[in-house]
Each structure stands twice: as structure tokens, then as C-alpha cells.
């Protein structure tokens, strides 16, 4: 190819990519900024340091899991069990720490157990050939029940010798930025790179784009699928541990119906429920927009009962937006 052809190929590609990928993200970002500006003007409580700190932290939890969910959705699947994995992760670490175990060992064991949930999901979906929706609906129910059995349905609030460390890791901040936000930033960076530059990332999107093609070209589809559900469970477990530290207590309703918020965040951020599309940055922006709006409802005195309506509407609007986009192209 001559350099001119090269340049043309490149520029056309850029424009195309820019149009395809950035449109939705751009508008999500604009919406979040507009919402923030409006709230700053309309209320005197939004732009306070305390409230912004809370928004930042809350959105980090949803964002972390939304990155896992985006991976699942990009591969053409869905994971409804993340809310239950959150409570299982939080419950395992609190029970172990209450029993006197140190933070790092308890956190590793907690993540290990949550990874087993992902492994179960992945095995049933990839090797058992069952629909992801059904399998993860089953584990959604089973895993929360497991967390209840584990805690004997008691509230956990005493975390043994490393009590302070857990609260600092989940609820503290460094340089004015809450710790969960660091976890989110690190995860978003690693996964953005992995999506683009690793074979694993290519395969996630290949499977979501055309699973049959992925199989025919010899991609280890089953193993990749298992890894995807394990990664999703890992993000949920990580969020569960951080939430335990932030709240300072764990009850069995932690993470209840969080899967819907997370799916909404992923879809708003451009993850295509039909598979093949999604970005980590999109997941983060989607989570940000949802949290800002949720926060604004509280500050504006709108009943929290409306939150479910808002999440549901958002999922449908985002999917409709996607349909229109594909219809046009």
C-alpha cells in the first residue's frame, strides 16, 4: 500500500470508529455533566464536598461490577447473579474476619469463593449449553440464600483484629479520593487495555459478534466463556468486600437488585445486549450517570420508590437508542 492509501484507510477508519463508538458515550457524558451543573444550581447540597464524596464512592461500586457485566454482555451473555455475589463476598469476609482471621487472607478466601460462583455459572453455560439468563437467575437465588445461611441472617458489624483496616480500605480515602474509586480506575484501565490488546479481549468480542465463527476458527470458546463469568463474579466479590468496609456492617439484603442497576449502567455505556460491543470506559460513564441521577432524586426530594422506574426506563431507552443506531447504519 502507498502512504496515501494508508492515510486514507486510516482516516476513514478513524471517522468510522469515532461515529460508531463515541456517539453514545459522548451523549452519556454530556448528560452526566448537564445533570451535575443543574444540580449545582438547583440545590445547595449537591456540590458539597461530603455529597460529592458519597456520589464518587457509590458510583465506584456500580462501576466496578458494570465493567464485569460489560465483558459478559460483550460476549453475548448476561449475569444476573452479581447482586448475590456481592452479598456472598461481603458475608464470607465478615464471617472470617469476625472469627479472627486477618484482612488479606479473608479477602482472598472471599474472592476465591465468589470465583467458584462464576465458575459454576460459566461451566453450566459453556459446557452445559444452558441459557445464561436461566443459569444466573438460578444462582441469583441460590447464592443469596447461601449468604443468609452463612450469617444465620444476623447483621455482621464486628470484624475482628483487622476491623480498622477493612473500614479504611472500603470507606477511607487517600489524597481526598475514596479508595473504591482507585479500584475502579485501576480496573477500568486494565480491562480497557485487555479488551484491545490481548487475545482474550479479541475472543470476548469475537464470541459476542459471531459465536459460530469463533468456534469454527478454533477459538477456545468454552474456556473463554468460563473466564468471562468468573471475571464478572470477581468484580462483584471485589465490590462486596469494599462495600463491607464502607458500610461498616453487612446485612443479607446487601446488593439486592443491584444487577439491574449494573446492567443499566453497562447498556447506557454502550454495551450491546445482542453481543459484540461494549467498553470499560462506557461502563464507568454509565454508572456515573445513573448515580448522579439517583443522587439528584434524593436531593430534590423525589421518593426513592421511583428509582426502579428510572432504572427500567433507562435500560429500555438505551436499547431503543441502540436499535435506532443500527437501523440507520
Amino acid at each position: 500500500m502507498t502512504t496515501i492509501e494508508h492515510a486514507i484507510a486510516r482516516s476513514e477508519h478513524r471517522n468510522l470508529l469515532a461515529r460508531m463508538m463515541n456517539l453514545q458515550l459522548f451523549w452519556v457524558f454530556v448528560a452526566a455533566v448537564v445533570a451535575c451543573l443543574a444540580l449545582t444550581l438547583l440545590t445547595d447540597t449537591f456540590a458539597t464536598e461530603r455529597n460529592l464524596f458519597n456520589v464518587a464512592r457509590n458510583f465506584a461500586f456500580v462501576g466496578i461490577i458494570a465493567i464485569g457485566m460489560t465483558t459478559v454482555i460483550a460476549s453475548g451473555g448476561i449475569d444476573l447473579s452479581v447482586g448475590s455475589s456481592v452479598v456472598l463476598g461481603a458475608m464470607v469476609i465478615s464471617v472470617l474476619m469476625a472469627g479472627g482471621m486477618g484482612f488479606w487472607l479473608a479477602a482472598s478466601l472471599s474472592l476465591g469463593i465468589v470465583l467458584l460462583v462464576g465458575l459454576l455459572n460459566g461451566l453450566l453455560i459453556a459446557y452445559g449449553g444452558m441459557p445464561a439468563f436461566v443459569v444466573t437467575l438460578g444462582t441469583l437465588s441460590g447464592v443469596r440464600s447461601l449468604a443468609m445461611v452463612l450469617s444465620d441472617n444476623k447483621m455482621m458489624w464486628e470484624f475482628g483484629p483487622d476491623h480498622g483496616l477493612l473500614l479504611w480500605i472500603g470507606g477511607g480515602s487517600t489524597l481526598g479520593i475514596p479508595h473504591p474509586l482507585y479500584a475502579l480506575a485501576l480496573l477500568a484501565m486494565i480491562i480497557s487495555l485487555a479488551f484491545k490488546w490481548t487475545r482474550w479481549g479479541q475472543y470476548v468480542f469475537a464470541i459476542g459478534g459471531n459465536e459460530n465463527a469463533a468456534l469454527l476458527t478454533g477459538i477456545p470458546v468454552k474456556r473463554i466463556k468460563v473466564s468471562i463469568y468468573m471475571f464478572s463474579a470477581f468484580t462483584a466479590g471485589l465490590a462486596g468486600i469494599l462495600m463491607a468496609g464502607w458500610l461498616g456492617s453487612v446485612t443479607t439484603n446487601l446488593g439486592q437488585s443491584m444487577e439491574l442497576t449494573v446492567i443499566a449502567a453497562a447498556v447506557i455505556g454502550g454495551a450491546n445486549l445482542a453481543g459484540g460491543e461494549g467498553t470499560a470506559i462506557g461502563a464507568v460513564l454509565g454508572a456515573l450517570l445513573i448515580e448522579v441521577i439517583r443522587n439528584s432524586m434524593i436531593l430534590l426530594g423525589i421518593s426513592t420508590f421511583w428509582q426502579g422506574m428510572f432504572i427500567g426506563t433507562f435500560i429500555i431507552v438505551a436499547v431503543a437508542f441502540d436499535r435506532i443506531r443500527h437501523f440507520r447504519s
Partner: protein
Amino acid sequence: MSRLVLSGISKSYGAIQALSSVSLSLEPGQVLGLMGDNGAGKSTLVKIIAGNFAPSAGELKIDGKPVVFHKPKDAQREGIEVVYQDLALCDNLSAASNVFLGREAMARLGPLRYVDYRHMNEVAADLFKQLKSETRPRDLVRKMSGGQRQAVAIARTLLSKPKIVMMDEPTAAISVRQVQEVLDLIRRLRDQGITVILISHRMPDVFSVADRITVLRRGELVANKEASRSSPEEVTGLITGAIDAA
């Protein structure tokens, strides 16, 4: 020595007998036209040779050596490449990514390995040029015409200097000019000593490139002869069953 020998290949899907005891042999640089009605078992035979699944019975030999494939990678390692009927492309990925799907080029950065898009784009651009196709390696397949998609699928097979290339209906959904290009390409593959198995319903395409014609009917091999000693009329009769065997 024969490039590919099939002896007694059978395959059943539960109660359906898709192939019953198919035997044939192919030489290097031969083009085989594989014909048969819908459901005759053509795709099934191709998938067995490509290692997508094992035959229920029978054996394969490549260059005289018996081979058993457990997965497509095993067949690729023996130099077998396939252009699938549905092309097996991922619409959401670029042309170059599709060409390299499942065998991405990796580069090193210290201890890290990453997907080498630059190399993949260069190689893909080169292959498209060989195919005289106006396909840009960075474009998403979703945006491509039928001919360009064919070019992507065919470029994929050329990546690894194959011994045998199988094409399932490569000329079904493309323009007349593109058909000529694909047929030219098949001749070029043949000139390089590559054995080509071409599945097609289009009689003129088959007769213009094939050295041998093989006809399957309901999973049975009913003819296997030189193209120059057959005719479209005879093959039509064989396919429909008006002629029993030849």
C-alpha cells in the same frame, strides 16, 4: 502420493445418516467440484475434513499419513483451510482481525505480549492485494459488500500456506465480476499446488475450474470422475437421481 485420501467416511446425527461410507482421493494441485442437492451431506464432509467433528466411522490420510482431528486447530496444523458457507465472520471486528481470527499475531513489549494490529493490517492488506480486492484491513466487516466479505474469508485461508483449501458455496452470494475473481483465485491456488475442494450449486462455475467432479446424493458418493469426461447434464441427472451412478 495422494494429498488427501478418505476411506469409508460415515457420519450420523442421531437417526439421520448424513454420510455413508464415502471414499475418495485427491492429488496436489487438483480442483475437486463437490456437488449434491440440499442436505446431501456436502457441508458435513467438509466439516469432517476440517476437524469440526470426528466421523462416526472411516479414516483420513494426508500425504499418506493417517490423521485424526479433534478440533479445527489440528486440521489447520496439517494445512487444511476452509471458507465456510456462512463465511464465519465477526461483523463487529475489522477485516484484518477476521483474517487472523483464532491466530492473532502477537508482539512483545518486555515481558508482555500484545495483539500486533500493525502487522495484522499489513499482512491483510497484502493478501487483499493478491486477491485484487478493494478491501481495507481496518474496516469493520459489518460495512462490507458480499464480495468483500468473501475476500476476507478467502484471505483467511491463505494466511498459513495451506495444502488443502475447501470452499463451501463461495460464489453463491456475489456479483458476476466477483465470481470470476473467485474462480481466478481458485486457479491461482491450484497453480501453487494447493488442492481445492469447491462446493457449489452453480454448474458453470464448477465446470470452469474443476478437474474432478464428485457427486453426493443422500450421503452416498454416486460419482467421482474427471470433469472433462462428464457434462452438466450428466451431473444434474446424478444429483437428482435420474442417473443412478457414474
